[in-house]
């Protein structure tokens, strides 16, 4: 049987502790953390691809598909169960990714990046013109239930706990993936595709699988955001939204599965306070933060932890 290693135990423990935090933390903080962890999940999708050497400028596509699936499921189809909605979100995203992936995995680097961007902007355009889906205003997401139980006034709290749970489970699985043969082969593809082909594996189909997995992961985050904010709109697929996910991915770095969650939390916090104190130039503050990270911590925030560990060993 598979054993839970130290990192996995730590991730599950952190997820549990944060979920229990719902009992003591103020609601503004649990809301901030819900958004941060859900975004962290979307960013995991960006990071999975980065490990394999692909940079997606259009991950907002799957974030948006996740959010809209939850919205449409509740408003128009009559599915209200949170778990069913999240599974539907992931399935919808995976289905779209399976089609788009056939084309996208033929491309690399900037061509791949721009094509992903193009697809997300196409969805933005379609949603903006769809009156039945609220055009540019989007629409409200119905309150969700959980296996027949309606959280009612505790809805936000429930979504927070759900997000902590999803984040912890996803983190464990993605950690396991990164340590697995497939995870290493993906890194190998980033380093040298030709060699991987000559070892007997198709780099293209590995990247295809990676792309579909990344789509499902990001859609999970999008679905949770839809539930948490109670609203979805086409901005979710806009290119600046995708840019934000790359920003967070760079902020955290790709070396550890916890990094995107940490970076998303920092991002949400900096943004909240920056908007509060300098409402008209908060983007400038984010810009300086990213500049600082790229110059001083090119491997992201997580390298701070790596460094302390290395120093402790020395």
């Amino acid at each position: 049987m598979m054993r839970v290693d130290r990192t996995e135990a730590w991730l599950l423990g952190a997820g549990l502790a944060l979920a229990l935090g719902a009992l003591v933390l103020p609601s503004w903080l649990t809301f901030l953390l819900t958004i941060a962890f859900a975004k962290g999940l979307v960013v995991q999708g960006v990071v999975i691809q980065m490990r394999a050497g692909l940079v997606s400028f259009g991950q907002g596509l799957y974030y948006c598909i996740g959010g809209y699936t939850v919205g449409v499921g509740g408003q128009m189809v009559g599915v209200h169960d949170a778990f069913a909605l999240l599974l539907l979100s992931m399935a919808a995203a995976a289905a779209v990714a399976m089609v788009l992936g056939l084309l996208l995995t033929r491309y690399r680097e900037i061509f791949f990046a721009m094509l992903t961007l193009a697809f997300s902007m196409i969805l933005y355009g379609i949603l903006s013109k769809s009156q039945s889906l609220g055009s540019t205003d989007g629409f409200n997401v119905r309150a969700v239930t959980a296996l027949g139980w309606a959280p009612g006034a505790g809805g936000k709290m429930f979504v927070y706990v759900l997000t902590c749970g999803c984040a912890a489970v996803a983190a464990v699985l993605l950690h396991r993936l990164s340590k697995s043969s497939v995870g290493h082969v993906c890194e190998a593809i980033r380093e040298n595709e030709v060699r991987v082909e000559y070892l007997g594996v198709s780099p293209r189909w590995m990247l295809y699988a990676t792309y579909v997995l990344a789509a499902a992961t990001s859609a999970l985050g999008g679905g949770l955001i839809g539930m948490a904010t109670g609203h979805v709109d086409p901005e979710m697929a806009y290119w600046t939204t995708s840019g934000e996910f790359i920003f967070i991915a760079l902020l955290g770095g790709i070396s550890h599965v916890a990094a995107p969650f940490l970076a998303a939390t920092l991002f949400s916090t900096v943004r909240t306070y920056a908007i509060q104190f300098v409402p008209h130039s908060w983007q400038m503050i984010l810009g300086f933060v990213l500049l600082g990270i790229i110059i001083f911590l090119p491997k992201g925030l997580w390298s701070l932890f790596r460094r302390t560990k290395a120093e402790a060993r020395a």
Partner: protein
Amino acid sequence: MTATPILEARNLYRSFGAVTAAKDINIRIQSGEVVGVIGSNGAGKTTFINMVTGFLPPTAGEILFNGRSILGQAPRKITRMGMARSFQVAQLFPELTVLDNMLVALSIAESGYPSFLRPLRNAARIERAETALAEFGVAAFRDHPVTSVPQGTRKLVDIAMALIGNPSMLLLDEPTSGVAVEEKFPLMDSVMQVVRRHGVTVLFVEHDMEIVSRYVSRILAFYAGEVIADGPPAQVLDDPKVQELVVGHGGHGRTRRAS
């Protein structure tokens, strides 16, 4: 009757626009042979290797591996059938350590497609990878990132990765190119030792005539896309046509053979 050759090329042609890089190539290689391929730059050696490994489709002709046609197969399929190759410039995963390079190769070789949830590192796999590195005498570098190891070591790791899937045939593309002169013979000694131990058939492209004549039992001399001589080293290297067109052009100009 002779046995089915492990590799057979029949009437192989390949042209790039007006240039013919392979012209009516007919080759039969028997299992267990160590065959050297010589020829000046542009003679068609690499084109031949690329066609055999599925990287480049021939314009016409047939290639059989163990009696089965491999025409139109992707390189990965041909690798899985038992034909591995090394590269002129070692093709490794630069940010991974020497051991992880081996483990990646091994995990693919072992399981068909690599596992999603089982860790790359397990005791049995690490032991096998270490044994393979030790066979080539490069075990000391196991934890070094491949970018930091000497060129000769990189070449050996490249070959070790190709061999770890237990292929029946190995194509070596200029195994000693880019390696310091004094390292060439030790490198080839250790490669040939391992190859013989595993009973692998070898086809290797090489510019250095001293290396070729020392390690192979048969030479194919290429010139302008054609095989102009095929036979034991002594016979081929003394052939006046080879002397004029291949050895003279090779740039090394060395015809001296090891006795």
